[in-house]
């Protein structure tokens, strides 16, 4: 897995498949017989031939997974007979994952990773937003600050899950849905969190927390950065409150 763009000409050693690019976090690892994931290709068009050379040396990756395909890598993958898919969010992939590539459907499955769907609701009142500090009794991210969040139960519409969690966790029965955005994905160890973000407006800032949280605060959105928050929360807030 490389989080940087890749050039096969000069960036990968054709003799052993090792990544040479000094800017790459996976420098020194070999792509041979691996599923090689990176965002997109860069550099000279001769890179296509360099991929062919890697194949002849039996050091080619067994598949290539790209965020977006560009012509040099696509050309090289075809002439070197390397299966390739694109349109994958490669930021969710980590070196060492056990990957299955389905070239027909264009899908990447990570065998060692579980996907979990959760809602995160940002409740706003009088220009401030509600942050909850997770208690020591919950299963994950203890002591960190979060929105109103919880699992989406099987077949449950996500807005219902969001409203259910608001009632359970902070006692808010009435709130107006202001905005919802496309789910955001975050990788954390062996879990990919698929977060369904909502923004609600509450008239009454009175809240009653349950056992899942130890405290709460109403904060100005610009101050959120000062809090130790659960992964991805700041990204969700900046997208919900542009």
């Amino acid at each position, binding site marked *: 897995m490389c989080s940087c763009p890749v050039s096969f000409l000069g960036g990968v050693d054709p003799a052993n498949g090792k990544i040479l690019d000094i800017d790459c976090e996976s420098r020194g690892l070999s792509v041979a017989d691996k599923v090689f994931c990176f965002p997109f290709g860069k550099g000279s068009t*001769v890179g296509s*031939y360099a991929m062919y*050379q890697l194949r002849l040396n039996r050091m080619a990756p067994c598949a290539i997974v790209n965020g977006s395909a560009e*012509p040099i890598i*696509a*050309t090289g993958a*075809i*002439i070197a007979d390397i299966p390739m898919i694109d349109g994958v969010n490669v930021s969710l992939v980590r070196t060492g994952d056990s990957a299955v590539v389905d070239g027909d459907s264009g899908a990447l499955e990570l065998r060692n990773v579980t996907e979990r769907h959760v809602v995160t609701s940002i409740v706003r009142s009088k220009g401030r937003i509600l942050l909850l500090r997770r208690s020591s009794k919950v299963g994950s991210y203890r002591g960190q600050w979060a929105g109103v969040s919880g699992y989406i139960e099987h077949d449950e519409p996500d807005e219902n899950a969001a409203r259910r969690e608001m009632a359970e966790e902070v006692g808010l029965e009435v709130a107006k849905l202001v905005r919802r955005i496309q789910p955001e994905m975050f990788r954390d160890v062996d879990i990919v969190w698929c977060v369904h973000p909502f923004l609600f407006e509450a008239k009454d800032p009175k809240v009653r927390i349950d056992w899942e949280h130890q405290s709460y605060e109403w904060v100005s959105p610009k101050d959120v950065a000062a809090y130790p928050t659960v992964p991805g929360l700041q990204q969700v807030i900046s997208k919900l409150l542009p």
Partner: protein
Amino acid sequence: MHLSAPEERILAGEEGPGRQKAMELLVALGDIYGAKRLIPISSAQISGASFKTIGDAGILFLEDFSKTAKVSVHASLNPLGLDLRHWKSMGVDASFHEKQSRIVRAYSTLGVEPSYTCTPYLAGNRPRRGEHIAWAESSATVFANSCLGAMTNREGGPSALAAAIIGKTAEYGLHLDENRRPRVRIDIESIPEGLGPLAGYVVGRIAGKRVPYICGPHLTADEHKSFGAAMAATGAVSMYAYSEPGRKDRVNKLEIEEEISLPASELRECSESLAGDSEWDLVAIGCPHCSSAELRGMARYLKIRKPARKSDVWFCTSRKVYARCPNEVAILKRFGRVLCDTCMVVAPIEKKYRSTASDSGKAMVYLPTLGGQRASFRPTNMLLEAISR
């Protein structure tokens, strides 16, 4: 992308592995660029012919591909890394020659015309207005789109070869009229003598990926050749529209998003910044390859002069043009080598030379990088003056 039944059959491998691979390549690129279908082409120009640029991996790919594939339309080929007849006197070693010969054989087996020039339009592959073609070689692509009115994207070597094999290319980019309309206007007030290539050099930097609409002084076809080549080297430009005084332009002014004026002073500054020094191992003229008119012009000036013999001199041209100009070639040979099949950009000049002067804006981009040279720009007439007395 929608494929016809015969195209599907090629993709399924029913016409052999070579045509299948070529079709896979066209379909993959078509998908990346959002093409809806394949369209027929009348010709291809293939890049990646010099051993210096494609290396051992390129040879192996071409040798393998040539076992099962053949081009189905007129396909011409870019310059090699050497003159097939005079490679020894160029300073090319035997192992390079051996590798280059394998590339030549592979392309020949593929059915590609042994034209070995970046100016196919001067050597028997000249498309007509409105024809779709699949040309690699950025200088030829920009000339075909801008001066001949043919339609091509800036292909890579393998994609142009795949298009030549299938006889089709994916319909996207400059194959569609809406992408050929200029978005930036560049006014060039005047071009000092010999600095036409540098006007292209500067325009390429400004235009980037956009199609520029250039209003400037009259340029001959040969001047367009050098101007466009430099533009395509400094930018990702594959086409420009050109308007000169007294000619009616057909550009939709409403679509112009930016207007830039390019004063002659900026061209002089560019000339100074690329001037380099005056100690040259090599003086190289002919990037892109010289036309008959250019050989005539130089021969006329040099006819009554004597060689100065300070630097080696290369005049680079295509074998077709060379054959058309025996008298001019005889005169130029008194001053240096008249080389065919190759040029200073793709020949391994770094093995013999350290410092090269040229009148080409394109060469100013590639000599320092690909060629490892200290490069010095001079207008053609100054180079001719320097090599003669």
